């Protein structure tokens, strides 16, 4: 099919093309909702049946880091929206600036995620042979994130949880499987989003996006906002529910 | 009185060896439980209703195909394109019929799912690829279930590994056996006889071999069977029977093609083990192989034999050993034998 300027050959008008592309992206996002929905459902059901283990799991996540990441992503959605606005209003010079900011914020998110994952690895919280939910409580010197005065409280909490659920270690592994599964999937989507943003950045620096034709910016924006919304669900599900005071 | 007792005794004996009375309809299994009649009746209702509509629609289609066949190459059909009354009609009427089928089916099913209070409870454990069943007094069976007639029986089902299903076609009942939870099912057998039961949820290699027989007995005979310890058989025959009952024969094929070595000629022979050593297959070795099969693995075989710890009494182990001893004189297969090859020192 031949292309005349911005118009692809299968379309009659630019308007039809834009409407088609937009509908396509929305339907794609619906499929993503179903995709994440499946694993969120599995998590939610297991949260209910292995209540104690999952509460313990949530408590090992860092609220400050998670909260910071949430703010970072919300900010990146703002800068992305600004990029779209710039392309719609013809402010060509601003588009690459906002795209770059979005990419930078995305990388900040990755950085924090790396810190969190590294901490899990260090604390024997990766599902597998070495998994041990009691590792930090039993070896406080090896785990930096436990304050000495909290240690006694943590010990008591874990003991209580084990009494309520003798299989706590196995069930806690389920929590971490879900944690890595969901955040990993989310991070993968962000990596793809970052790739798309780089592509947009390159094209915007060549001045390709105009008020008449800015569909790619628009659609990547939709995708980026969706990835942000997934995090807005993940954060409370993983970090906030059942935290101890 | 004596004559009556004699006659009833004969009738009882005859029933023990026959299958239950066939259902009067062809293509149906025997009706041997309290559910069978209601399930079959429901089935017939649905069958006849569906048959009616199938014949109706087919006849209409064939009639139309004949009556409205094209008579000239350029002929077209009429402009008939719809009729609201027909649409409503053939939506509402099937819906009503469907709801009747649903409701009737739900009633039968609920009856099945809610067990009565006073049941004879049997514990059933399914594992790849056998069934272990335990009577209320602790007596255990493998791949067999003996129960009294006209009593409410409840099975409590557990799995040691994957999902199985306990299915008795003659009773019209089945229930999945799911690892990590107990499922229960109940039924009341109504006819004395022997009936197949099958594993009815695919569970791996020998799914099709994982079945056995339910023997429904008169209450007096059941009581007698329950308190009976072992038969008055000579050890070798008892052992041979056990060898089949415990499903040893499914793996230890005598021609050496099974997943376990042939036991022909094994007794007092030299067995080559996986770690390179060899042992003499004496009574102790046989006993250990039955109770702790993973202790010594024969070279060239996988450690898949399940343990029979807790499933066989010492007496039964002795009977099995006597039987295996009797296999000394049987022909040893060239490949797949339990004993080491003669004297060449080659592995």
């Amino acid at each position, binding site marked *: 099919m031949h292309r005349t300027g911005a118009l692809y050959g299968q379309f009659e008008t630019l308007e039809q093309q834009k409407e088609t592309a937009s509908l396509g992206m929305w339907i794609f996002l619906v499929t993503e909702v179903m*995709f994440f929905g*499946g694993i969120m459902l599995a998590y939610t059901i297991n949260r209910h049946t292995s209540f104690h283990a999952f509460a313990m799991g949530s408590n090992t996540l860092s609220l400050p880091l998670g909260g910071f990441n949430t703010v970072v992503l919300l900010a990146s959605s703002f800068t992305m929206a600004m990029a779209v606005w710039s392309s719609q209003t013809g402010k060509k010079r601003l588009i690459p600036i906002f795209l770059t900011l979005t990419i930078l914020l995305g990388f900040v998110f990755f950085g924090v995620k790396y810190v969190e994952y590294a901490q899990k690895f260090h604390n024997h919280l990766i599902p597998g042979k070495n998994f041990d939910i009691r590792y930090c409580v039993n070896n406080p010197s090896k785990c930096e994130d436990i304050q000495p005065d909290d240690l006694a409280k943590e010990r008591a909490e874990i003991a209580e949880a084990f009494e309520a659920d003798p299989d706590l270690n196995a069930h806690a592994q389920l929590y971490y499987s879900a944690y890595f599964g969901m955040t990993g999937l989310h991070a993968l989507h962000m990596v793809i989003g970052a790739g798309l943003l780089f592509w947009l950045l390159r094209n915007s620096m060549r001045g390709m996006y105009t008020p008449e034709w800015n569909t790619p910016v628009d659609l990547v924006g939709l995708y980026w906002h969706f990835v942000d919304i997934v995090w807005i669900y993940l954060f409370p599900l993983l970090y906030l529910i059942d935290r101890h005071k | 009185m004596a004559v009556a007792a004699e006659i009833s005794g004969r009738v009882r004996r005859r029933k023990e060896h026959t299958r239950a009375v066939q259902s009067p309809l062809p293509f149906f299994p025997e009706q041997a439980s309290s559910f069978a009649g209601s399930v079959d009746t429901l089935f017939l209702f649905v069958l006849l209703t569906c048959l009616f509509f199938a014949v109706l629609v*087919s006849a209409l289609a064939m009639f139309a195909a004949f009556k409205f066949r094209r008579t000239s190459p350029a002929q077209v059909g009429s402009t008939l394109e719809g009729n609201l009354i027909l649409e409503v009609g053939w939506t509402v009427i099937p819906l009503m019929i469907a709801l009747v089928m649903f409701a009737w089916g739900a009633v039968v099913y609920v009856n099945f799912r809610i067990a009565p209070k006073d049941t004879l409870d049997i514990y059933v454990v399914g594992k790849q690829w056998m069934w272990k069943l335990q009577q209320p007094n602790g007596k255990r069976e493998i791949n067999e279930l003996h129960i009294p007639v006209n009593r409410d029986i409840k099975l409590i089902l557990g799995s040691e590994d994957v999902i199985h299903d306990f299915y008795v076609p003659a009773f019209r009942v089945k229930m999945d056996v799911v690892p990590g939870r107990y499922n229960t099912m109940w039924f009341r057998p109504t006819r004395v006889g022997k009936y197949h039961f099958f594993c009815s949820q695919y569970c791996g290699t020998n799914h099709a071999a994982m079945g056995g027989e339910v023997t429904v007995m008169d209450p007096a005979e059941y009581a007698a069977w329950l308190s009976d310890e072992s038969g008055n058989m000579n050890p070798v025959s008892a052992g041979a029977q056990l060898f089949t009952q415990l499903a040893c024969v499914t793996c230890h094929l005598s021609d050496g093609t099974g997943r376990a070595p042939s036991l022909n000629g094994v007794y007092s022979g030299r067995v080559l083990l996986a770690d390179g050593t060899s042992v003499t297959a004496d009574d102790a070795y046989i006993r250990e192989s039955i109770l702790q099969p993973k202790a010594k693995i024969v070279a060239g075989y996988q450690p898949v034999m399940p343990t029979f710890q807790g499933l066989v009494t010492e007496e039964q182990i002795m009977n099995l050993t006597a039987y295996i001893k009797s296999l000394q004189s049987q022909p040893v297969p060239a490949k797949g034998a339990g004993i080491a090859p003669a004297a060449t020192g080659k592995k």
Partner: protein
Amino acid sequence: MSTASRTGTAPALKLPEKHYLNSEYGLRSWLLTTDHKRIALLYLASVTFFFFIGGFFAMMIRLHLLTPSGYLLSADTYNRMFTMHGVTMVFFFLIPSIPTILGNFLIPLMVGAKDLAFPKINLLSWYIYIVGGAFTLYSMVTGGLDTGWTFYTPLSTVYSNSAVAPAVLGVFITGFSSILTGLNFLVTIHTMRAPGMTWFRLPLFVWAHYATSVVMILGTPVIAITLGLAAMERVFGLGFFNPAMGGDPILFQHLFWFYSHPAVYIMILPAMGVISELIPTFARKKLFGYHFVAGSSIAIAVIGFVVWAHHMFLTGQSTYAAIAFSFLTFLVAIPSAIKTFNWTATLFGGSISFDTPMLYAFGFLGLFLVGGLTGLFLGCLGIDMHVHDTYFVVAHFHYIMVGGAVMGYLGGLHFWWPKMTGRMYPEWLARIAAFILFVGFNLTFFPQFVLGYLGMPRRYHAYPPEFQVYNVMSTAGASILAVGYLLPMAYLTWAAFYGKIAGENPWPATGLEWKTPSPPPTENFEVTPVVTWEPYDFHNRPDLGLDVPSHTGVMPVPAHGHD
């Protein structure tokens, strides 16, 4: 343009000079094409390939089951045969066949567009299908797969000794092909209809694919994540579905069937769409109750999403849940019944011919009737407690999938073969093949209903001897069925090169796809059509050259624009 067969005096037909098949030559022009028609043929080749593989496994199953104690294959090998038969046929034949071959080819033509909304994504879909297929084939040759196509845990994730991970990965990948195809269809049908092509002027084939696409995009992502979790469980030892680690095997079943039940509607709705084209065409009459049939397609798609746990009536779950799902299962049967009645009613007052596509339509009517009605038995709780997981189920779904979906597929292939290739298939040979197929099919699968009620469980490599006679009947039927499949493969291939030239509209039929040459040019239409007629309206189509009684003529409605 009327054809020689009708008037007997028209000049000899010729193929158009330039069309989509000869517009470009060379392997690259095929492997890098974005033309929906060429992509449809790429799918035709690969789907047929997988059909042969699935058919081979079926042959092994039926041959082995001739005797009660399994003379041909070991238990492990048999278990691999039925598993791989299921996986191949479901994911690589039934789900793609009609949508990717007929749907891809026809939807742009039927709505009056030059191509689908996203031609490059269409090609990507095909490559994803090939990659997914490659992974699954790899699994088949390196250890096989013996978990059943349903992959129940913990058998598949912990206990099976077969190549589960690559197979699951293959199906996971192929799911994305399905999702992208559905997405493409949905968007195309929404935004690319020609002027005058309003929703209720769309052919029912398009409505059926719209409904199918809704199911594809909502359901497939769920099986993707489910199989993804199962693969991770197998490879990394996670425990979501493993009770030994606190997980729940029933959770797997819920997630699996949440897709796999709607998947069966992905398999049957397109075939129903084909039938809705064939019957009006060969009865030369409008489809009776067009709006009801269109609405039924949507209803089936929607209600189909809330019946999944009827596969789980005997797992020990809540009785209340079972009752709810049984009720909904009976509800989902109603729209199918409505369609069946409307198809039958269309025949009344028609002018019916018995060309091969119509024979397949009649075959579909009869066999779908049996298959659909036996679904009622299974949805009925009091009967399912006896026949669940027996050959009754196997017979039921083969009646729908082979008797229904495959009949629709073959009928559609024959019907549109002249459009796709420009040439006709040999009519009498095709009719004989259809008849052989019908006979062979019934002999294969009807005895299985009996086997099921007698109590023979499914997925059994050996069975009690009293079941042998029905198994032998079934195998005999299968050998006849095989002939019924091989014949069309052979003569359709032959006809594509040497068949009689068909012309633009040999039947004639009323769809927009028949108003362009056979085979069509790459851009489908020289000029964008403007639609002013109702679907299947033989009375207002003077261009078809048929004898229309003038006093029933109605003036065509002028176009109102896009919607």
